[in-house]
């Protein structure tokens, strides 16, 4: 089972909280908006933490995907 991770670029404000909480999974692009670069780089609990800690609720994790 893998987890699908999405960032809604419209909602993201570039706090970079996800980048700290799930190292390797997210990066900020040139506009300061988070992108999912490698969801497998971080354990699932870190991905969940990144989603629930996001200041704007821009991150969704879809459990059971794949």
């Amino acid at each position, binding site marked *: 089972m893998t987890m699908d991770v999405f960032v809604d670029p*419209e*909602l993201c*404000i*570039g*706090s*970079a*909280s996800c980048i*700290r*909480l799930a*190292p390797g999974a997210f990066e*900020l692009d040139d506009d*300061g908006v988070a992108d999912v670069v490698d969801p497998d780089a971080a354990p699932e609990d870190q991905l969940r*933490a990144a989603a*629930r*800690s996001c*200041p*704007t*609720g821009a991150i969704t994790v879809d459990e059971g995907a794949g």
Partner: protein
Amino acid sequence: MKERIVIVGGGVAAHECAFALRRLGHEGPVELVGAETEVPYDRTLLSKDQLAGEDAGACVALSERPAYADAGIDVRLGVRAVRLPAGESRVELSDGDELAFDRLVVCTGGRPVMPEALVAPGALALREGADLPRVHDALARVRHLVIIGGGFIGGEVASAAVKRYAPVTLVEAANAPLAPVLGDDVAGRLAEMHRAAGVELVCGTPVRGVRRERDGLGVVLSDGRTLWADAVLVGVGMTPNVEWLEGSGVELDDGVVTDSACRTARPDVLAAGDCARWEHPGYGARLRVEHWDVAMRHGEAVAAAALGSEEPFAPLPYFWSDQHETKLQWVGHAPAWDRVDLSEDDEPGFVARYFDSERLAGVLTVGRPRACAAARRELQSAGVAQEAMSR
């Protein structure tokens, strides 16, 4: 640069500063001294998911312990700074030790105000990971929780309480929770949200005191009524942790006073986060902000400043609060406003736009994250604030 940089504080600003120093190429020693026993963690979850869930769980570390070692950041926890002698580059710690520094970064945050009259035995506050077990446990067993103060912490604890079926009364001195900040119209709608969710609201009645009663606590209101409770949570504001800097040569005024680039009156001392009152060039005013997103950006800015950058810190303030499954979001800075435009439609939630002399100063959105994002872009393009740093 091989300077020895000591960061006092263990919150998000301290964390960001420590790691940003390395990202910016600083090669000298970096030491983080935190008063709490945990490495910096996500404080925002304490009053949200962690309190509302059956199991409070552990604090969510912003970086796991090995990441500090990998980055060459020394961490000392459970120790607070107690004195900074004037004219000396050393800080005295609560364990009797002292640390020499070339540059000191102060990120000591704040603590809940606990007025003497409200501090009955057993009065709760919620700020740190160490506070959570008592508050979490209280929600599991209370027959009646009284929350004193209808600010964001009070609102979030009330939300968690109803979610966990704990009978709860929220007492607010003003006409409605947050009325002094958001105005009566908006606050009245938020009050409706609390009531609809099952929170008992008692407004317009400051609390005179909390007293011990035979079978619990009595919350005595200014109108003479007494509310019985078996747990009381106090959420009436924060005060910055800066007393230890008295006599250090650093200017204090409800926080550590800095210029726009995080520099205090002492060239070897900088400050950021909830404890800092800094000159915001976009607003031409000194601001002390107690919001997570600002503290995070401030931490990165102070790291650059410690390495010599003069870039002003000029964020567009943002905060959010989750109450009764609804996201409240604020963007902007509106210490004074003369008009509020409310827009509502058939969907739940609303958008309130705050104007000062016809200029849009801030926007509150309730259950409308997309409207908040749009407001943020609108305020940004108005050019008041610039992003603190490009990352």
